[in-house]
C-alpha cells in the first residue's frame, strides 16, 4: 500500500484551475522530487496536501496510509503523520521555540498513543536532535523563526521534521534562500531521516537540491499536472534543457 496516494486531484483558486487531475503514488522508503516552473502549482499542491483552509479539492482524493484526508483539518493530518516543511517558515513572535516544539511533539505522541514527554525529558531529546542539525540551544530559547537567518529557518523546519517523525514529509522549496553550506546541513538532516518506513516528497525549482537529497523518482509538474515522470536523470535533463523543452514535448 502506498503511504501517500493522490488520485485525480482538481483544485481551483479564485475560479482558476490550478491542479487539473493530478495523480501520484508514493510508497514507503521512497523519495520523490516534484519539479516545475513558476506557476505550475507546486505551492498549491503542498498547501492542499497539508490541509490549508481555502485549498480544498474540488474533486479527486488524497490518502495517507490508505486513509482519506478529505475530511481532516491541517492539525489532524499533521498528527496522522503528514509534515510540511514551509518554503517561508512563519515567524511567531512571543512563542518560544522549545515550548512550540513540545506542544507539537506531544500532540503527535498523544495521537500515536505514546506517553507525552515531560519538560525535562523533552528538553533532553530536543537538544540531542538539535545538535545534530547544528541548531544551537540559544535558538530554541528564542521566539519561533523571529530574527532567524534563512538558513536557520530551514534548519529549524528540518529539526521539527526530525522530532515529529512523520510518515510523509513534503519539503516545499527547502533549498530556497540557502547557500551551499546551509544546503548541505539541511540535506544531511533530511537524509538522516530517510528509512524504509517513511517517504519524502521534495518540491523544488532547481536540480541543485537533488544532488544532496537524491530522489528515486522525479516528476515534472506543469500547468497543474504531472507531464513526465522518470528517475534522477530527468532532473539533469531539466537542468540542461530547461522546462520549456519538456513541456513542449509533452
Amino acid at each position: 500500500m502506498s503511504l501517500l496516494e493522490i488520485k485525480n486531484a482538481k483544485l481551483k483558486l479564485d475560479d482558476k484551475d490550478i491542479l487539473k487531475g493530478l495523480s501520484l503514488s508514493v510508497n514507503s522508503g521512497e523519495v520523490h522530487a516534484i519539479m516545475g516552473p513558476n506557476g505550475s502549482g507546486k505551492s498549491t499542491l503542498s498547501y492542499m496536501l497539508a490541509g490549508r483552509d481555502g485549498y480544498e479539492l474540488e474533486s479527486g482524493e488524497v490518502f495517507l496510509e490508505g486513509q482519506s484526508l478529505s475530511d481532516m483539518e491541517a492539525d489532524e493530518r499533521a498528527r496522522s503523520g503528514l509534515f510540511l516543511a514551509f518554503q517561508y517558515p512563519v515567524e511567531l513572535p512571543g512563542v518560544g521555540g522549545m515550548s512550540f516544539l513540545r506542544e507539537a511533539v506531544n500532540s503527535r505522541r498523544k495521537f500515536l498513543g505514546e506517553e507525552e514527554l515531560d519538560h525535562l525529558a523533552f528538553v533532553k531529546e530536543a537538544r540531542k536532535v538539535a545538535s545534530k542539525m547544528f541548531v544551537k540551544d540559544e535558538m530554541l530559547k528564542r521566539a519561533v523563526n523571529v530574527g532567524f537567518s534563512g538558513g536557520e529557518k530551514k534548519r529549524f523546519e528540518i529539526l521539527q521534521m526530525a522530532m515529529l517523525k512523520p510518515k510523509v514529509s513534503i519539503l516545499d522549496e527547502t533549498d530556497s534562500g540557502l547557500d551551499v553550506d546551509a544546503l548541505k546541513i539541511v540535506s544531511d538532516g533530511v537524509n538522516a531521516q530517510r528509512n524504509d518506513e517513511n517517504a519524502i516528497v521534495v518540491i523544488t525549482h532547481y536540480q541543485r537540491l537533488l544532488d544532496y537529497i537524491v530522489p528515486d523518482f522525479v516528476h515534472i509538474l506543469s500547468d497543474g499536472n504531472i507531464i513526465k515522470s522518470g528517475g534522477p536523470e530527468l532532473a539533469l535533463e531539466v537542468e540542461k534543457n530547461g522546462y520549456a523543452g519538456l513541456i513542449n514535448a509533452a
Partner: protein
Amino acid sequence: MLHNVKDNYIISVKDHVSQFEEKSFRKLASNDFKSWPSPREETWRLSRLGVLSRKEITPITPNFKKQISSVSKFKSSKIIRFVDGALREDLSSKLPPGVSLNILGEEDSLRCFHKFKDSNLKDHPSTNVSFSCTPSIVKLTIEKDVKIRDLFEIIYEGGDDDTSVHPALYIELKDNSSITIIERFNHLSSLIMPLQLVELKKNASINSLKIFNDNQQSYNLSANCTFLSEKSNYNSFSLIKGGLFTRSETHAYLKGENCNLNLNGVYLSSKNQHHDLTTAIYHDVPNCTSKQIVRGVLGGKSTGVFQGKVRVAPDAQKTDGQQMSRAILLSENAIANAKPELEIYADDVICAHGATVGEIDDDQLFYLKSRGISEKKAKQILITAFLKDIINESVEESIQNYVFEEAELALSEIISKEI
C-alpha cells in the same frame, strides 16, 4: 427646589464638600463640576458617560474601621493601602528610609489642584469631582539619591454599591531617585475616580505598573498627570481587565531635555466591558523620546479604545515619538477603536504611529496547525504570545511573570467563551 434627575450626582458632590472644614480647593473644584462630558467632546466621543447621569450615586464617606482581606502576592513588598479612597496607615507597611507618606495640608493640596487645573486634565470629571470629594491628598516622596530596591504595592480597595470613591495620590521622585510601584484597583464601588500627580525630578526614574481590576459593574475614570524633568525616566504599563467601564487617562509633560517616557498597556475585554486607554504626551523641549505600545484582546460585545495624542512643540527638535496599537477581535460583536493623533510643530523629529485591528493571523494559525496543534490550542498560543511579547518588552523583568499571570486569568475567560 425641583431638579432634574441628571443633577443628582452634582448635588451630592456639593453636599459632600460642605462637610469639610477647609474648603478652598474643594469648593473651586466642585464649582467646576457642572455635568458629565458630552459625547460631542472629541476625547469622550468614543467613551460615553451618559449612563452615569442616570445612576443614583453619592460620594463615599470612608469607613476607617473597615477591614480588608486582600493579600499581596509578593513576599517582601511594601504595601500602601487605600480603603474607600482614604489612606489606611494602619493597614500599610512601615516604609524604608528615604521614603515618606504624608497627608497634604490645605496649601499643598491647593498647589496640587492647580497643577491639574493648569494641565489639559482641567476639565476631566475626576479632576473636579475627586478634588472636591477626596478624603485627603496623599503624598509619597522619594528623597534625593534614594534608590528603592523593595517593590512597592499600592492597593486601592473598599467602596460600596452606589457610591463613588476618590483616592488622590501625589508621587514625587527627587533628583536621582528610583522606585518600582505596582498599583492595583480592586474597588466594589459604582464609580471610581482616582487622581494621580507624578513629578519626576532630574534623573529620577519610576517603573509603574497599574492593574485595573475593579468590580464588574463599576466605572473607573482614572486621571494621571505626570511631569518629567531633565534625564528622568517614566516607564508605565497598564493592564486593564476589570470594571464595566474603565478609562485610564494619562497626560505626560516632558519638560526637561533627554527624558524618556514609555506609556504601554494592554486591555482584555469581554462581555459588555468598555476599556479605554487615553494618553496625551506633550514634548515641550528637545531631545526626548516617548513610546506607546498598546494591545487589546476583545471578546463578547466588548469595546476597546486607544486614543493617543503626541504634541511636539516648535522648540522640541530631535523628538522621537512612537505609537503603535494592535487589537485582536475574537468575536464578531466586539469593537476596537484606535485614534492616534500627532500634532507636530517642530521640523527635525522622528514620529510614527500605526494601528491595526483584526483577527488572528491566518499564516501563523496554519503554521501551528500544520504541526499537529489543534486550532483552539493554536489560537491560545498566539494570543498568549501577543501579550507575552508586549509584557516582556514593557515590564521590568522581576515582575513580568506576575503581570503575565494577572493577564492570563482574564485572557482564559475571554478565550473559553470565544474559541
